[in-house]
């Protein structure tokens, strides 16, 4: 008693002491940052700033730097944090924070009202995150360019129609509360932003920087193009270009290629121009087919190479961004190539990915490949080769043949890989080093036939650095497959521009493209409504792409505003017509008329659109939006795919376009599947097992005697309970460490029922320490029920089933305590256990308790076996509950299990024997993942 007080006292003193230490600043190291620089990020679209400051020394014991931003010196909001390891300090002298791209502005976690960072002064200028308070955040919308991310259902059905006068015109908006929308921001080019930093030390004291720095993001020209290559193939008069993206290419809008004579000082002629499919990246190549040595575009000759031949020309590429700032590459010359330099591009196939929920397309091409990826020595002069193989859904690989030759082309071994475990062994006559080189020829048997014409060659060359044979690149017909990459592209209906999807290596044969279901709508946010406390966004939404009129049909999300889009176009037409009337410069008129035609076309398209009429005939808001959604969401997920192959240096081959029967581009949409065919064996096996259970349960019910062999641990349970009773000591039952989702726990709890009943009959206390919250009520119920069944409801104490801790080792500490202080005579461990098992069983054996364990955790069985008196291994744990229950239903399932095991054995033996004779039919029935 006395010493307990002492401990508590000691602990409190220690705590107070440490708190006291907290409040005293014992070090003299500097805490506040003195110098902050705000630097414009080069080559960007004018929305990025870099904040740089000098890191404080290790002695300052800083744990993080908090960065604050605002549009004036006296209101700065928290925007981000850089954590620092307090023990080591920052790794380098200067620290940076990048405020660029779209990033967090406001979301559901933002504070409700303006909250100053109290530790840095109650009156500012430092505040926590931007608050949801519309009075504060509303006016800030104009200081940034803001994008709202809205869950699709919120936008479709849960907005409020709000009209507001903007620019002296009444406008209708969709209003959304701050909980319905997530806002992300970009900086506005040319606007001044203020930044400061708070250093936080390990006691969470805030040390505001001495200065507030400011800077303006500036829209710069794109970085200079590098990696620009051109090739010319005279046989087909094809000029090909390839280039690499510069680092920041988000705002590049057009790519232009110019040509000029090498010895001519005059500016070049534009021969190629393409736009980027914003906001996606465009593929970085261009192919120009010359007509009679001329570059022709819509009837105009842009350049004539018959006057200046290609080898006398120089080419350069220009990147232009949205603000018309541009950068230019160094001039290069085209390399002459021949047709044999280019590979033959395999045909790209697109199918819906099988067995998925409909958000993937599978793209595949070409024949399967296999290659050796590593070589190891496994015995004297025996090497083990491991290989990888890539196939696609067009080919079912049955066998792979590896023929190994030495450097003199003498055949060493033929390997038939019918069982593709990615590994085989070869015995050599001499060591790898003496062998020096091996040649491998790889052939396939696929779709049931051997393809003798398709041979992959690979060399394995001895590399003294790793003292092993190193696999080289692989080739087919003398062409190295790794030299060329595939670039996959796709496009939607409403643009002619393909976007670059991904680059895959030349040895891959299949790739999945995710076509996600639409879940969010993106809308720019610049207006707000103070009285409604809402952000305002545009009410128009794209419905679909009308193929016939070649225009995107859009409409308002409100029935009352359904003519909104038409009115807007009419208004635009009126405006342009007004402009035409005012001017008499022919060039301007031509320019305006271009727009006029476009608007008029759009007007016709939208007014004549039948689908839109159908939509607008629905007067119920909700039904109308459902109709719109059903059209829109299908239309947005339609894609056309395309592929090209290149070596990154201008050697480019394009696949032909994917066209349907009508000669139009083929747009595919993934399908949601209703049954996973890969799980068919599982379904059959589960049904068969279910039938077995049914048969044996019926048999058991009819009173058939089902024999179950004695299981050592289970038979001892009664004796162990008896022993505890004799000694007058309690029993401990530990239901494992996992929750009720784990069947091991359920099996354990089922056993607890029997044990608790016996214990209640003998009037012996049973203690059940739990680690999972949900197990507590279940275990309590089970024990209570057992006491009722035994006719001793009075002896049940719910405090005997108790929670210890959900932390693994705190639980163990608690259970150890129970064992020692309650002096349990019998300990049961039934369920799932981890590393702690040995701590508990060893403590149990120091108290001399009888211990019986049962677990399906194979890693813990060894410890139970060595330290417990009896152990139920794996499946025996599950069998135990049925065995103890002796009910026909339970015994029936146990019997069914046994017969299922018989089938497993049968298949194992059959499968193994057949596969030893090169027949893999049975193996292939079974799923491999």
């Amino acid at each position, binding site marked *: 008693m006395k010493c307990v007080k002492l401990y508590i006292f000691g602990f409190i003193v220690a705590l107070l002491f*440490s708190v006291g230490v907290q409040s005293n600043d014992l070090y003299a190291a500097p805490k506040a940052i003195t110098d902050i620089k705000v630097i414009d990020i080069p080559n960007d679209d004018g929305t990025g700033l870099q904040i740089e400051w000098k890191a404080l020394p290790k002695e300052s014991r800083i744990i993080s730097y908090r960065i604050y931003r605002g549009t004036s010196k006296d209101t700065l909001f928290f925007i981000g944090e850089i954590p620092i390891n307090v023990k080591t300090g920052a790794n380098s002298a200067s620290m940076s924070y990048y405020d660029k791209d779209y990033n967090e502005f406001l979301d*559901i976690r933002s504070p409700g009202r303006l909250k100053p960072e109290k530790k840095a002064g109650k009156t500012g200028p430092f505040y926590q995150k931007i608050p949801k308070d519309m009075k504060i955040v509303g006016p800030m919308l104009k200081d940034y360019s803001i994008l709202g991310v809205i869950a699709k259902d919120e936008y479709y059905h849960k907005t409020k129609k709000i009209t507001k006068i903007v620019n002296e015109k009444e406008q209708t908006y969709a209003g959304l509360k701050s909980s319905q929308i997530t806002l992300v921001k970009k900086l506005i080019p040319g606007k001044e932003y203020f930044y400061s930093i708070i250093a936080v030390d390990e006691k969470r004291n805030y040390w505001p920087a001495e200065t507030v720095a400011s800077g303006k993001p500036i829209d710069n020209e794109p970085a200079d193009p590098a990696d620009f290559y051109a090739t010319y193939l005279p046989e087909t008069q094809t000029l090909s270009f390839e280039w690499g993206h510069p680092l920041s290419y988000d705002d590049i809008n057009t790519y232009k290629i110019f040509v000029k004579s090498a010895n001519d000082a005059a500016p070049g002629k534009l021969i190629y121009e393409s736009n980027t499919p914003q906001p996606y990246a465009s593929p970085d190549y261009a192919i120009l087919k010359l007509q009679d040595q001329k570059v022709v575009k819509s009837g105009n000759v842009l350049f004539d190479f018959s006057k200046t031949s290609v080898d006398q020309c120089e080419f350069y590429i220009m990147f232009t961004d949205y603000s018309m700032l541009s950068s230019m590459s160094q001039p290069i010359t085209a390399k002459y190539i021949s047709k044999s330099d280019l590979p033959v591009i395999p045909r790209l196939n697109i199918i819906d990915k099988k067995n998925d929920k409909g958000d993937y397309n599978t793209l595949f091409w070409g024949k399967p490949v296999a290659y050796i990826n590593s070589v190891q020595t496994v015995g004297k002069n025996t090497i083990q080769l491991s290989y990888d193989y890539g196939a696609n859904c067009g080919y079912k690989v049955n066998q792979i043949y590896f023929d190994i030759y030495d450097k003199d082309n003498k055949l060493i071994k033929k390997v038939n890989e019918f069982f593709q475990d990615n590994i085989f062994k070869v015995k050599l006559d001499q060591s790898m080093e003496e062998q020096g080189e091996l040649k491998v020829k790889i052939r396939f048997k696929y779709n049931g036939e051997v393809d003798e014409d398709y041979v992959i060659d690979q060399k394995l060359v001895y590399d003294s650095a790793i003292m092993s044979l190193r696999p080289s690149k692989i080739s087919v017909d003398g062409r190295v497959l790794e030299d060329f990459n595939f670039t996959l592209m796709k496009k939607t209906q409403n643009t002619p521009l393909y976007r670059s999807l991904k680059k895959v290596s030349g040895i891959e044969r299949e790739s999945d493209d995710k076509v996600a279901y639409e879940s969010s709508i993106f809308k720019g946010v610049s207006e707000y409504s103070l009285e409604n406390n809402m952000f305002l966004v545009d009410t128009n939404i794209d419905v679909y792409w009308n193929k016939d009129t070649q225009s995107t049909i859009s409409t308002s999300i409100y029935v009352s505003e359904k003519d909104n889009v038409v009115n807007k176009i009419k208004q635009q037409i009126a405006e342009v017509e007004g402009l035409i009337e005012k001017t008499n410069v022919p060039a301007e008129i031509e320019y305006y008329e271009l727009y006029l035609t476009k608007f008029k076309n759009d007007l016709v398209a939208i007014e004549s659109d039948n689908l839109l009429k159908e939509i607008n005939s629905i007067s119920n808001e909700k039904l109308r939006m459902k109709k719109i959604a059903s059209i829109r969401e299908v239309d947005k997920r339609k894609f056309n795919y395309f592929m090209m192959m290149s070596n990154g240096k201008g050697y480019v081959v394009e696949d032909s376009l994917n066209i349907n029967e009508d000669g139009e581009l083929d747009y595919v949409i993934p399908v949601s599947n209703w049954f996973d065919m890969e799980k068919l064996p599982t379904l059959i096996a589960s049904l068969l097992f279910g039938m077995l259970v049914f048969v044996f349960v019926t048999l058991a019910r009819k009173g058939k005697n089902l024999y179950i062999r004695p299981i050592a641990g289970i038979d001892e349970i009664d004796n162990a309970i008896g022993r505890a009773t004799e000694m007058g000591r309690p029993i401990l039952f530990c239901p494992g460490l996992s929750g009720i989702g784990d069947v091991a726990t359920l099996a354990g709890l089922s056993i607890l029922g029997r044990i608790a009943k016996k214990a209640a009959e003998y009037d012996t206390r049973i203690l059940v320490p739990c680690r999972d919250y949900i197990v507590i009520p279940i275990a309590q119920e089970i024990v209570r029920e057992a006491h009722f069944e035994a006719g001793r409801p009075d002896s049940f104490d719910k405090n005997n089933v108790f929670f210890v801790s*959900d932390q693994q080792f705190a639980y163990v500490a608690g259970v150890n*305590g129970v064992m020692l202080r309650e002096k349990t005579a019998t300990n049961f461990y039934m369920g799932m256990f981890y590393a702690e098992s040995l701590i508990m069983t060893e403590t149990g054996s120091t108290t001399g308790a009888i211990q019986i364990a049962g677990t399906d955790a194979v890693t813990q069985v060894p410890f139970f076996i060595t330290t417990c008196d009896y152990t139920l291994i794996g499946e025996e744990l599950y069998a135990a509950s049925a065995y103890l229950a002796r009910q026909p239903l339970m015994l029936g399932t146990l019997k069914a299990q046994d017969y299922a095991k018989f089938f497993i054995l049968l298949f*194992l033996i059959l499968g193994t024997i057949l596969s030893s004779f090169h027949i893999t039919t049975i193996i292939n029935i*079974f799923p491999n*993942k």
Partner: protein
Amino acid sequence: MFEIVSNWVAAFLTLCIFSFLYKDNPFYRFAEYLFVGVTAGYTIPLTWEMAFIPYVYRPLFLQHKFILLIPAFIGILYIFTFNRKLNWLSRYPIAFGMGMVGMGVPLSMHASVLVQMRGAMIPIESINSLLVFIGTITILLYFYFSKAHTGTYGKVVKIGIWYMMIGFGASFGYTVMARISLLIGRIQFLVSDVLHIIK
């Protein structure tokens, strides 16, 4: 200074736990109860922050997804566990959670039976693969409950037991190193971080 105090507290508690090896004593008891208390206390704010706020408070009070009142109400029924008359109510949340066990039938069949079976059907090309095959078969027979382990069958099953015992022995021996490493880690903490004996 702050770090030194922190280290000393940690070291003191470490020693308290180690003292258990000698015998149960007030120091260990103090550490044990403190440990249990701190871990329990640790869970409360974390559950509040990581579960209650994002899954109950925000959807209900900020996004007005009132349908979530139903699961929140079912969740509250847990509390009736400790009431003798109404404890049957706590079966509802439990039952709701148990629903997922249904998934266990096909998933275990798939991942733990069929996939494992495929893994076991390796062509016998060497002594070792034959030995693995024999081992797998005989162990499976050991778990066959419909026949007593007698006679020839008993001898076959015995082979399975031998395999298991070798496997268990190997696991045991294999774990020793990791466990010693843990202790080394603790002792290094005491010796170098706290006492600064090793530099």
